[in-house]
């Protein structure tokens, strides 16, 4: 499903964020990515959905080899991936409903399918009362939940989430985790960068730890507190 081989990433300013990282993720896995602030978690995730290109090494996601993929294929490639960005990246000029619907419109879903599906996922994340709000009229956690709803609305093969519960209280976080585990149970691959120790320890899955741009741990059901 996903294969990274000897990936190195140097940013334009010279920072080497990822040094040498190889990784295989099978379809249907649930993967935590942890590591200290600035370790390189977001960098890895951004390379997975091709926002960033690796400086060297190769990345294969599904049938796409990201190094050789034509620019015109990128949108189609991304349609199989639902992404929750660390900074949400909602469209400021669209309402909650429209933000989520946009992700369906771009895959040319039919109008009559869009409405019920969008309402359904917004209900899942507990925002069914705020359809007409603009992102600027939402609390931080509400914005984050819109981002989550948008990521799952197309029922993608892979959901990649960068700290999807950073702005959520523990109860709401549990709710979101329930959703992610449920879609994972239905076959969706889930990759999730997180700082939430409690969650990692209480809901064990495969755990990847990155530190200083290197993979320092990759263990099934590992727990966050190991190093303490």
């Amino acid at each position: 499903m996903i294969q990274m081989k000897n990936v190195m990433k140097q940013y334009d300013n010279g920072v080497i964020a990822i040094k040498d990282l190889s990784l295989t993720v099978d379809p249907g896995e649930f993967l935590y990515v942890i590591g200290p602030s600035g370790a390189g978690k977001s960098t890895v995730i951004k390379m997975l959905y091709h926002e960033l290109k690796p400086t060297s090494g190769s990345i294969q996601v599904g049938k796409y080899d990201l190094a050789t993929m034509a620019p015109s294929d990128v949108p189609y490639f991304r349609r199989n991936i639902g992404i929750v960005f660390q900074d949400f990246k909602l469209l400021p000029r669209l309402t909650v409903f429209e933000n989520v619907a946009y992700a369906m419109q771009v895959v040319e879903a039919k109008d009559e399918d869009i409405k019920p599906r969008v309402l359904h996922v917004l209900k899942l994340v507990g925002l069914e009362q705020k359809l007409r709000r603009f992102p600027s009229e939402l609390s931080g956690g509400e914005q984050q939940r819109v981002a989550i709803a948008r990521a799952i609305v197309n029922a993608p093969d892979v959901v990649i989430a960068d700290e999807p519960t950073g702005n959520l209280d523990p109860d709401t976080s549990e709710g979101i985790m329930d959703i992610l585990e449920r879609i994972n149970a239905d076959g969706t691959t889930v990759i999730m960068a997180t700082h939430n120790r409690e969650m990692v320890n209480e809901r064990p899955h495969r755990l990847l730890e990155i530190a200083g741009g290197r993979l320092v741990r990759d263990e099934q059901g590992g727990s966050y507190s190991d190093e303490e």
Partner: protein
Amino acid sequence: MKSNVFMRHVRDSLKSLKRNGWMSVAAVSAVTVTLLLVGIFLALLLNVNRVSTQVENDVRVRVYIQKGTTKKQQAALKDQLEGLANVKKVTYRSASQELNSIVGSYGSQWAMFRGDQNPLNNIFLVDTKDAKDTISVAKRADKFKHVSEATYGGTTAKKLFRTVATIQRWGAFFTILLLFVAVFLISNTIRITILSRRDEIKVMRLVGATNAYIRWPFLLEGAWTGLFGSLLPMLIVDFGYGLVARNAHFTEAANGFSLYPNMPFLVWLDLGMALIGIVIGGLGSVVSMRRYLKA
């Protein structure tokens, strides 16, 4: 593209225009002011061009008829002149009419020549189809029977031709400059608005929108901006030109000059402004977006 998708783009573009609030207002008003300038100066330049052509066409060949020529001979000469290539019209003026115009501009002491004393000849004024033909027509008329002399104003006319050519050359230069400036300013305004929304465009890419899908609403929004920006200039130019043309009518008609009549002129001018607005607004959007549609 399916037609319902296109309708969605149209709806989205109008929604976005509305939700962009002050940014849209600023963009539309930049287009408005630019096109207003274009409309007004273009109306001026085109009419200067027209009037200068009319002035040039005022240059006519003066054919002096020998004294003692009979009416019949005069009529034959007139036919001959009218038969020349490039001649549009031949007008007769008697010696006393000629003298009157001299008295009018050179002072009353010329009045003593009135009546039998009049040393002047009767003349034919020959209008050519194109002012440039004046010289050749004069040369040919000079050789006709009963013609004592055929002149075309000599250095004065040549100077006039030169002046008119200069004016028209500069008019063309200023027209092109104006259009270039308008195109640049409108597309530049659009560019700034796109620039301030580059993050939005990137997000659209990130959630799987194709470039075409992203482009359409922006293209349409740019075109709306251009269209809405051209409405006020059209109104003002139509109204203002109507006003000016009406007032100018009496004074100018006396001099034999005329502005373009409202009707087809304003339609073309309006169409030109609207087209500049819409096309440059839409194209400007698409071109400005290119850079953000790469990754």
